[in-house]
């Protein structure tokens, strides 16, 4: 447990170091609003670099199971990330996924499983619990290191090196798919206002933009 507490700030520090090192990083701010201008949180924003792929990393992530829900519900991570599935509930869960990039199942367990799950292939992995149908979590596995979930304010802000990017936006409750668009980052900070209509009651029927 202690390991997890200190590892993530360390990673962020390292990332910041890399970006600082590039010295040419440009701030990109994506603000997502839904119907009637309300900010849309938990929307995945991914910038896929079109001019070469940065070196792979071996990230880690934690998807907890608290009170019969996956926390966080919406996840985005780079390929090769090892994800831990601790069970914080007093009941047991059986986490599984039939998603094509990485079908797996963690036999019924409580506490933390012995091994993490490493997602090697990009794509959308939908997590479920074989016992509790209501438990759903989304894990978007992308090759790009540039991704973010919007905050409560609907804003996802990051620094990108100049270049051309393909912008992908997805929300599990979005009503209409947003086609990926090319964004060129150069010189000045970029602000991308996006409109994504989200309805919490709307089922997930908009496919993850590959």
């Amino acid at each position, binding site marked *: 447990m202690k390991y997890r507490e200190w590892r993530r700030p360390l990673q962020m520090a390292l990332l910041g170091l890399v970006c600082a090192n590039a010295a040419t990083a440009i701030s990109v701010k994506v603000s997502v609003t839904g119907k009637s201008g309300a900010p849309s949180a938990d929307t995945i924003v991914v910038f896929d670099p079109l001019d070469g792929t940065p070196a792979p990393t071996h990230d880690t992530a934690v998807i907890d199971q608290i009170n019969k829900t996956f926390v966080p519900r919406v996840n985005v991570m780079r390929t090769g990330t090892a994800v831990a599935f601790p069970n914080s509930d007093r009941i047991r869960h059986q986490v*599984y996924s*039939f998603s094509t990039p990485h*079908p797996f199942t963690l036999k019924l367990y409580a506490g933390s499983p012995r091994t993490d799950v490493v997602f090697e292939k990009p794509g959308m992995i*939908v*997590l*479920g*619990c*074989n016992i509790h*149908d209501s*438990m*759903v979590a989304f894990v978007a596995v992308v090759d790009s290191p540039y991704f973010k979930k919007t905050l409560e304010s609907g804003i996802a802000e990051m620094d990108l090196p100049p270049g051309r990017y393909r912008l992908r936006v997805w929300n599990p409750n979005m009503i209409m798919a947003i086609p990926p668009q090319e964004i060129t980052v150069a010189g000045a900070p970029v602000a991308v206002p996006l409109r994504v209509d989200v309805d919490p009651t709307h*089922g*997930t*029927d908009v496919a993850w933009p590959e």
Partner: protein
Amino acid sequence: MSLRTRIALTFLILLTAVLVAALTAVSIANRANAQRDVQRQLEFGAQTFSGLLKTNRSLLTQAAQAVADDYGFRAAVAEHDTETLVSALQNSGTRVGAAMVVLTSLDGVVIAASGSDRAVGSQFPIAALKRNAGPDATATVMVDNGKIYQVVAVPVKSPLPVAWIAMGFELDAAAAKGLAAATGLGVTLAVRAHGPASSAVTNDGDMVTRPIKLPSLDNTEVFATLSRSMADARAPFDGLTKTLFEIAGVSLFGFGWAAFWIARNITRPLHDLTKSVDLIRGGRYDVELSVHRRDELGVLAEGLEHMQTAVMCRDNSIRQLAYEDTLTGLMNRTSFGSSLSESLARAAGAPMAVAIINLNRFRRINEHLGYSVGDAILKQTATRLTTVPSIESAVARLAADQFAAFTRLSDPKDLQAWGTSLLLALSEPVFVEAQPIDISATIGLAVTSAPLESGAQASVDGAADDLVRCADLALEQARREKRAMSVYEASLNPSARDQLSLLGELRRAVEKDELRLFFQPKIEMSTNRVAGVEVLLRWQHPTRGMLSPAAFIPFAEQTGFIRRITRWTLSRAIAQAASWHHAGKALPIAVNIGADDVSDSRLDARVAGLVTRNQLPPSLLTLELTESGFIEDPDRALSMLNALGALGVNLSIDDFGTGYSSLSHLARMPAHELKIDRSFVQGLETDAEYAAVVRSAIDMGHSLGMKVVAEGIETELAADRLRAFGCDIAQGYLYAKPMPLEQLERWLEGRGRVPVVALPANFNADEVTDTVTLATY
């Protein structure tokens, strides 16, 4: 229609009306009940039906869900392991008996199917089904390959929906049968291109149907039709109605019987009473009337019985009054006659004697000693007469002082002896209140002789009447001859038989105008002028020629027919006098009236009427009345004479000197004229005593203010003497005979009189016989 039928019919009709109304009401109510029941059953059936479909649905849903939840199945779906999927679907379908299990993609493309002909890759209407997913969804049916399925769909989640499982039961004949069993109704499942617009209940003849439209996935319309037979629904009510009809029938029969019984109970006694009343009407008074009932009929019967007794009592007293003399208790005239007839019939030829007994001087006894004494005498007379020994006899009281008796004689010669014994019985004085009163009787006797003098006896009734009449005639004879007893003998009165037939002839004579008026002039002695005429009667008999009054007037007096004759005479005479008067000639006429006429209370009115109608001055009419006319009832005669005198009519006392009238009577009479009897006039010439009587009579008449007429003057000598005595008027053959009208007129002309006007009546003067001496009438 008889009372019985009417009573019974009335009740029956009323009851029938009530029953018909009740049955109609029940029938209508039953029909409505049955209708309501059917409606309720159909509604309930519809609810049951939808409940069953819901149960089916949840069964299907659970089964489909079980499959969808199965991890292995989801793995197979994820891995597109079709064979495994098909087997899994088959397995789950078999478990619940689902005929169709289909796995489709989210877009409805069939991935795997079991029990359906759907090919993999074909389109399944999952979108429509999805809309009906959920717990409250209605049953959904679809038609697949001509078969009807109830289908549900559940998503396969891993964990997001990745596929759909559709599972369905086939709604086939077996299912309909199950539904029918559960609802108790007829269930028909049918696909229709265009079904009924509504799910309203329709009543197609006997069947009431309730279509239920099932939500279909496609355009087809699937109907489950619930039906119920009205006949079945009505069956229990029909049973009730039938029972009611049976009760109605039985009660009608019972009621009808009871009504007839009651009606009969009422009418039978009525009928009996009617019969009894008929018997009573027929004269029987011993009819048993009691019906032994306490109701109104009993009272009626009792009333009739009382009435019967009352009628019987009254009948007896009426009979008594009719056949019995109340004073003496003897038979009256009627029962005497019938009793005599019976005895005559029984006597069979044996001599039967009849006596008519008249008490002498009875009127005087009544007048002087009082009616109670008279009654006592009559009673004792009755007693004495009944004690006279005789064979098969009877005694009766015929009139006030007249009794009758009859007896059977062993020999006709005993008649005198029987009569004498009757007389002897009445010879002793009668004691009334210890006072001896002498009585005497006059008896007329008659006896039947064998053979009866009438030869063939027509009838015993006639014989009895004849016998009584003969005895009566004998009594008259005894009175005339002033003897105590007289026996009727046919030889003594040869005209008697003639007289019996005379009455009929006399009646005919008046009707056929056979009577004639003759006129005899009256001469005023001092001037020798005609003072008037006396009207006299003649009978122009068709076979016996002209008859004088002596031949028929006494008989007419006896029979009372004299009144009729007097009426005729008065009317003709007055008419004749009036015609003279109107012709300018005042010729007074005199008409004879008898004692019988004077007792006729209407005489004065009749005379007044005739005088008025003919416009004759009353002074030209003189009525001549014999002395005997007021001997019987002088007071009554006197009042009648006064009444006549008041009319202005002249009155004349006829045949003066022959009767027994007292001088006091004479003095009181309002007469204007006195006619001295011819016997005195004719004895005048030879008998000095007669002359003295005539002379004093004339003087008396004058002193009483009357004119004196002498009739029957035949010689000049008699006329001279009468003139010397001061007689006023003369009448007789010396001057003129009675003559018919034409002759009178010629006679009057001969004396220098103007002819008189003739009557229209046909007077035949040539046939007048002059031989007859003028009668006293």
